[in-house]
Each structure stands twice: as C-alpha cells, then as structure tokens.
C-alpha cells in the first residue's frame, strides 16, 4: 500500500512499477471547484444547445415528441455519466479539469479505469448533498491527506495537479561588475555541491528582493566566502554571490559548441568536478528545436 508513505504537505510521492519515484501535488478545493463549475457550465451549455437543435429539427419534421425524448435521454446521460465518460476516455480529465490542469489518478499513481471514473462521479451525489452545497465532500476532503471526497475514497482515486510550466533558461548574471569580479576569483576554487545549490537558489530569487534585503541575505554566505577567497573588505556580498554563480554555472558551461552534445549523464559525471547542472537546461532548449529524426543514443529529457 502506498498510503503509509511519508507525506509532509500536499506533495505525494509515487513509486511506479518500474521503480521510478516522482512527486505530484494533490489538488485542493480551490482548483477542483472551478473545474467543477466549468464542467457544470459545459454540461448546461451542451444541454441547452442540444435542446434547441433537437426540438427544432424534430419539430420541423413533426416529431417534436421524439426530439424531446431524445433530449431527455441525453440530459440523463449528461447528468450522471458526463464525468465518468470523459475521465475514462480522456485519461482522467474532463474539460474543466483540463483547463484547471488537474487529473484524476488512482492512489497508486496509475490511470483510473472506467469503473472508478464512473463510480466516483455517481457518488458525487453524496458529496454534494442537496442543501449542503458540497460541504460534506469538503469536510471529508479536509480529513485526509489527499483531499479525497467520499467518491474518491470509495474508488481509490485522487486528483493531482499537472502543471506544465517550462523550466526557464539558466538565470544569467548581467551586471558587468559581477562578471569582472568573477574573473578575479581564484581559479582553483570549486564550490561544494550544497554551496552551488545555495548560489543557484539565491540568484534565482534575488530579483524579488530589495537591495538592502539582498545585502542582508547575502551576508551570511558572503562573510565566510570573502574570508576564504581572500577578497578586499569592501566587496559587495550580493555581487560576490553573483560572481560565484556566474563562475560556477555560466563560464564553465560555455565550452566550444563543436563538442558532441552532452547527454545529461555525461554532464553530471563531469559535474563531480564542480559544475553540477551546467548542461541540463541548455539541453532542454537545444532539444526543443532539435530535428526529431536525428538518431541519438542518449535522449535528453526536454521534449516538445
């Protein structure tokens, strides 16, 4: 059972049959409610259009009763099986869920089957008791780790967020003074793995802070680094971190482009020397534009 895996917040870890572990974020009510409302609107829209078309078309043929009957049957199917059919055929997504970028999965991370998809939507009636405005479902959802409402609990499903943001390019340092400082740093200095990570995190976020806040944050690393690197006391800490970042991630990376495309594997092996993630992001962009037919032994992960 997956359920006893450690879970700290809304991130859940899934281990696939291939023994790959990755994480999902479970979707809370603030994503699921809009998705539900969109689906409700879609349903109402389809029903309204179908009513117009069917009753009009059959009415012209003098078969208004038949048209009405067909419409009522359709309304029945829409009311009870809209979600189930979409989630079966569109891999756990209804139009509303697709717009809100969420997806229904089994709790073990596999796709839902037709039975689960249908049942969880039929059991929506219990969660959304008339007169209670979904409060029952909401209450049940808050009482478990995966925001499962009663219908989800009964068929072992959960709703996860499926984001598709592209990881942006490497953040570049464009301050010329920092670049100049980078050139002055001792050549033998190799940041440790955790230092490299801290640098990347800091530079990635420094845009969001005011200069004085940057100085305050950079101090913690800056003081010992200035000491180790033997820099003059008036060095700006923020600029020092940027320079180190530039040295670690940018300068080392700009090798002559003639060398064969670096697969992530090779890149990481090399990174033991000091450049842990140099290649991964450029690879992504590279492959996005790459000719698909070109045979490669090691495929990098960026795909478009």
């Amino acid at each position, binding site marked *: 059972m997956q359920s006893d895996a450690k879970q700290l917040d809304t991130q859940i870890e*899934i281990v*696939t049959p*291939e023994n*790959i572990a*990755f*994480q999902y974020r479970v979707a809370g009510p603030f994503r699921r409610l809009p998705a539900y409302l969109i689906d409700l609107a879609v349903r109402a829209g389809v029903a309204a259009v179908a009513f117009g078309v069917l009753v009009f078309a059959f009415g012209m043929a003098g*078969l*208004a*009763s038949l048209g*009405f*009957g*067909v*419409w*009522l*049957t359709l*309304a*029945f199917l829409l*009311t*009870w099986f809209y979600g189930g059919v979409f989630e*079966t*055929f569109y*891999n756990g997504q209804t139009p509303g869920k697709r717009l809100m970028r969420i997806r229904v999965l089994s709790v073990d*991370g*596999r*796709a*839902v*089957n*037709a*039975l689960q998809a*249908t*049942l969880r939507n*039929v*059991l*929506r*009636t*219990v969660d959304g008791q008339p007169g209670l405005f979904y409060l029952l479902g909401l209450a049940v959802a808050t009482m478990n780790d995966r925001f499962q409402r*009663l219908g989800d*609990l*009964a068929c072992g499903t959960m709703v996860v967020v*499926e984001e598709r*943001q*592209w*990881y942006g390019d490497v953040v570049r340092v464009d301050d010329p003074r920092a670049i100049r400082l980078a050139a002055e740093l001792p050549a033998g200095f190799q940041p440790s*793995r*955790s230092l490299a*990570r801290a640098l*990347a*995190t800091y530079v*990635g976020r420094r845009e969001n802070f005011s200069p004085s806040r940057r100085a305050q944050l950079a101090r913690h690393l800056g003081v010992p680094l200035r000491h180790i690197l033997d820099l003059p006391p008036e060095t700006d800490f923020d600029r020092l971190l940027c320079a180190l970042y530039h040295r670690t991630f940018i300068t080392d990376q700009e090798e002559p482009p003639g060398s064969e495309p670096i*697969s*992530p594997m090779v890149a990481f092996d090399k990174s033991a020397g000091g450049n842990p*993630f140099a290649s*991964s992001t450029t690879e992504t962009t590279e492959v996005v534009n790459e000719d*698909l037919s070109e045979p490669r032994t*090691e*495929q*990098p*992960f960026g*795909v*478009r």
Partner: protein
Amino acid sequence: MALEGRVRGRQSPETIARFASLYRSACADLALADAYQLPRGTVHYLHQLVGRAHNQLYRSRMFNVSTWARQLLVDVPQRLFHDNALRLAFCIFWGVFILSGMLSYARPEFAQGMVGKEMMAQMEEMYSEPVEGRTSGMGAAMFGFYTFNNPGIGLRCFAMGLLFGVGGLLTTIHNAALLGGVFGHMATTPQSDNFYRFVTAHGPYELTAVVLSAAAGMRLGFSLLETHGLARMASLRRAADEAMPTMCAAIVMFVLAAMIEAFLSPSAAPYAVKAGVSVFSAGTLVFYFVILGYPREKSRATG
C-alpha cells in the same frame, strides 16, 4: 510535443520507441538531479515532466464490451444470489411497501399524510380516464422522461447507501412507503382500474431495479461496518468494485421499464398483452437472479 501526442489513434512505432527512450532519460535525469541536490526549480520541473510522461504511458482503460457483458450476465447474478444486502433491501422494500399500502387502503388519513393531498389529487386526475391510447404520439418524450427520472432516483438511492448504509436504508424506506401509499390509496378510488392497468406491464422491472439499486448502495455502506478483516477503506474499495456492475444491471432494468412504461403501458393494446409482458418480464428476472445466479461448482462467488 512528442510526449503528449494523443495516443487514441495508433502512434507510429518510431514515436513510441522515441517516447520510451525519452521517458527513460527523463527518469534518469530526475534521479540524478535528486542525488546531486540541484536547485528546486530543476527538480520540480523534472518531477512534472516525469509525471506527465507517466500519465501518457499508463492511460485509462476503455470500456471493454466483453468484460462488461461477462460482469453483467455472469458475475453480478452469481454474486447477488448470496448477497445479504439484496435480501435485506428486498425485505425492507416489500415489507414497507405492503404495510404502507394496507394502511393507506384502510385509513385514508394515513395515505393523506404519506402521499400528500396535492399528489393524491394529481394522481386521481391523471388516471381519471382510461389510459389506453392516452398519450399516443407522446411515447418518445415519455420514454425520455422516465429514463431521466427513474434511474436518477435509483442512482441517488445507491449513492446514499455510502453513508454507512443508513442513507440508503432511509431512502429505500421512503420510496417504499411513498409507492405503497400511492398503490394503497389508488385502490380505494374509482380510478383504481385505470391505475392498475397502467402499472401492470412495467412494474416488475421498475420495482426490482429500485430494490437492486438500494441493495448495491447498502453493500457499499455496510462494507464500512463489516470489513472482513480488511482496513475500512480497502473494504469499501472492494465493495465498490462489486457494487458498480450491480448498479449497471439496475440501470438496464430501469431503461427497459422506461421503454415499456412509455410505449406499451399507455398504448391501446389489450390488457392481456400487458399482463403477458408483465409475466414475461418477471420470468426474465427469475431467470437472471435464479438460473444465472445459481451457484456453480467452479466459479463460486465469494460471499
């Protein structure tokens, strides 16, 4: 986007092979990124990418006609033959139905309390004329209405069963008392003939379907109480696997009943035909529940 291509139609072998290798590389990247403690953004991006690829690889399984037919015609009756929830639902429904019917027959004030004045007047007016040929030409519309309304009631009753069976029990008792009240009351009115002629043909399917959906819902709810040694959620999940096909059988019955109710019951066909259909449909139900459901040696359904 190579990873995203709609896999509904067949993909070319090259695409699939490429997808597989891309997926493997993405997984390898994720593992490495994790091990090297790369920045959060990178790791998060890779988690997303692998998650999406995983969802493309393991797609939801479609409706498989032969599996569902086997479920409906073999597994469901076999299971229901031993199903205590069905027995309970059957006894409660018919017990309350008959009780309520007799009480309303004997005491008009009970019927009034049960059914309500408004509905009684409505029913009396509805059946004030002979039903034969009443709604000629309206058959299709009525079929639609019955299809919309009746399985909806059944499905709601089923879903309410999830509340530890109590919700389903209450809904069943309510349905049975209401129906019994109507039947009992109508018997005292001059319109009784019209009413009973109308309900004869579709009665067996419709009332059985009501009982069946209540039973399927109770199976869900009771699985939370009686777990057979499983964790409650696991027990509920197992019951859900069994309850849904049962509910499908109930929906099929509802739709059959709706057809009969819309096209035959109000038609000008002689009463003998309607009674014949009624007997025939009762016969198919007996066949379904007893003959198909009779325990067989090799595939003995579990409790």
